[in-house]
């Protein structure tokens, strides 16, 4: 296996000693099939034990290892060194406060995820003893894509609206609301409307589309938001013409 030397420029920040973050350079001997995470692990195990970062599965399904790699939000476990130049700039995920080194504060995202009521609000009540709800493969296909979000928040790092307005509910949370709205077993669209169809919900989005560009699971949150805009607008006019009785 061929080895090559790679230079990592990592943005460091220790709140107890630093006024602001600064770059530190590490020279790492790398295998040709390595990902950026392997290089970072090498740094931690052999060069600098003080480097803090998140990771777990190493197979792009847990969503822990999001970071800025040469200015682009990416999963470090699925970014291959073979696709990168010899100098790699690594920074914590954009648009989130830095806790320490490559670890960002996730509180805002976690709050927003909860706000959109991301759980099934069933159309019909059914006891577990009476079996599953029926759902055809076609019905499953309608929302399946939007179930694939691994909550890595690369989309928030890419979104200029979120960068400039931290109140924006954001791509992943809105895509998750859409996932439930499209699920044939769910009737929660109205219940989610307050948060989803608010000024800080879908209407903050100007369809930059960067979120969908960087999404590692091809969830297409931008598409989800535009579809929700159409659905909400139709709801709005329906309510205007035929006001609901409840």
């Amino acid at each position: 296996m061929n080895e090559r030397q790679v230079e990592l420029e990592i943005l460091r920040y220790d709140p107890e000693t630093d006024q602001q973050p600064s770059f530190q350079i590490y020279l790492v001997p790398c295998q040709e099939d390595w990902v950026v995470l392997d290089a970072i692990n090498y740094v931690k195990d052999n060069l600098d034990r003080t480097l803090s970062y998140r990771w777990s599965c190493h197979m792009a399904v847990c969503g822990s290892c999001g970071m800025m790699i040469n200015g682009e939000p990416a999963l470090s476990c699925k970014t291959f060194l073979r696709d990168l130049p010899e100098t790699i700039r690594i920074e914590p995920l954009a648009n989130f406060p830095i806790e320490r080194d490559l670890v960002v504060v996730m509180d805002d995202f976690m709050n927003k995820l909860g706000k959109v009521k991301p759980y099934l609000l069933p159309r019909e009540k059914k006891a577990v003893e009476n079996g599953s709800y029926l759902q055809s493969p076609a019905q499953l296909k309608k929302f399946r894509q939007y179930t694939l979000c691994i909550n890595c928040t690369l989309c928030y790092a890419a979104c200029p609206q979120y960068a400039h307005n931290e109140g924006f509910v954001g791509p992943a949370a809105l895509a998750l609301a859409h996932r439930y709205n499209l699920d044939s077993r769910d009737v929660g669209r109205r219940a989610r409307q307050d948060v989803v169809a608010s000024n800080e919900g879908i209407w903050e989005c100007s369809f930059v589309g960067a979120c969908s560009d960087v999404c590692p699971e091809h969830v297409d949150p931008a598409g989800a938001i535009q579809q929700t805009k159409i659905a909400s607008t139709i709801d709005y006019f329906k309510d205007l013409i035929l006001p609901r009785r409840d």
Partner: protein
Amino acid sequence: MDMITTDIVIVGAGGAGLRAAIAIAEENPDLDIALLSKVYPMRSHTVAAEGGAAGVAKDNDSLDNHFNDTVTGGDWLCDQDAVDLFVEQAPKELTQMEHWGCPWSRDSDGGVAVRPFGGMKVERTWYAADKTGFHMLHTLFQTSLKYPAIKRYDEFYSTDLLVVDGRCCGVAAIEMRSGQLRLFRAKAVIIATGGAGRIFPFTTNGAIKTGDGMAMAYRAGVPLKDMEFIQYHPTGLPGTGILITEGSRGEGGILVNKDGYRYLQDYDLGPPDPWPRKKAMELGPRDRLSQAFWHEHQKGRTIDTPHGDVVHLDLRHLGEKMINERLPMVRDLAISYVGIDPVDAPIPVRPVVHYTMGGIDCDIEAKTSLDGLFAAGECACVSINGANRLGSNSLTELLVFGARAGRGAAKLAAASRSHTDETAIREQAQIAQNRVRKLFLNVGGGESIAGLRREMNITMEAGAGIYRTEESLNRSCAVMNDLRDRYARVELEDKSNVYNTDLIQALELGAMIDVAGAIATSALNRKESRGSHQRLDFKERNDETYLKHSLAHYDAREAPRIDYRDVVITRSKPGARVYGGESK
């Protein structure tokens, strides 16, 4: 030190922990729940499980079938009363998941689809494409957001159980973002922290699978049961160890050696056709498949690669449409991590450590021998998996026993009128704090975390791998003892407070060293071969002496003391594990 008083503490927010939390919130909405996890819940390793969750679904299947498959698969080391309960609860729990929105794959009639899986006579594995664990975890996490009673403490690393007067009354946990130790006082504690695959160098397991909860219970006096049984999943990617689901064999994938020969037929799993066929060939149990690889390797029939020897998993005959429909993640993983498109070429695979059958000794109610302490999921050993787990039983196990632990803890908490005396619990918490502080105070010991971890990895793979001998195990036990002494001299290079991962890794290493000692010693003492514990010097199963669970009891200085407890046998007497042949 800050004290948080609650009714129930759950350590671990993966499938079992979340299921327990929801069970408590539904059973008794007045109870307060503190759900602690060292990672955000969506990062829990449940997320990486792929193939499916087993539960009787079809009319041509029966609970008896599921029972027999599980007990046989476990080489009769399963407690049969527990297995009976498990198979009976399984369909209900999986249906409950569907009611919570889990996107199970469907048949054309709209019912939930099931696929064949290793060691199972009839197909009963519910699946969500090839990301079942991911979908289950996210469904459970999102559902948990409905319940205000569940208060989450994300990125809290639990270090110690707090025990007063023989009762477990809380945990001490480090708030990772501040480095402060917090004391949680509760009326019941549930541990759901997962397995310990990171003890080994090649594993499907993520970084977080370091046996923390197992070690906490172990040190508090609860024995670890059946630790010698470590499952090697037959198909992991070379180098990274990334899991390639058994589901790919369930859909018809085959394993061939360097001559393109389906070698499993040489190991009592044939004949090779008709294919696919349940319980035969590539749908045999995991222990037998991993052992077959080892033999092929000895015979020089495996394929050499820069990342070690492999065999080939061939999916080409399934066709692109089916692969995209049922195994899309497998295709993506193969292309990304080994540069192979399974539509055009076979995937290189080898056995890698995947699952810890053993764990915290608990009973059918998920209760441990320590009052107030429950355990569920991979960290626990009831035992329903025995000496070898069948694929897709563990995702269901999370639900059945997670719910059971939750309900048990809820009952206990509701019945307990008062909390433990504050002074007494603070004393225990102080002991915990001193233990952690010691890591900051060590200077000049010369031991590195990465170095000790590497040595542990090497000795455990060499000595306690797929095949073991007295000599190899003795060596591993000696090395682990030595590592434990050296660990006391580990010096932290990072002495900061905010998100100090050097500290967390040091604590994780400590947990792994303790658990690894239990694995090696239990394996040394079991002088027979059963399921995934194979001895070259004791090749046969010995039911007379060893139809028993091993129990490892922690000792702070010496190797653990091992004693035994009879397996609960109700209606299935130990027989031969027969796979292959004609389908029945």
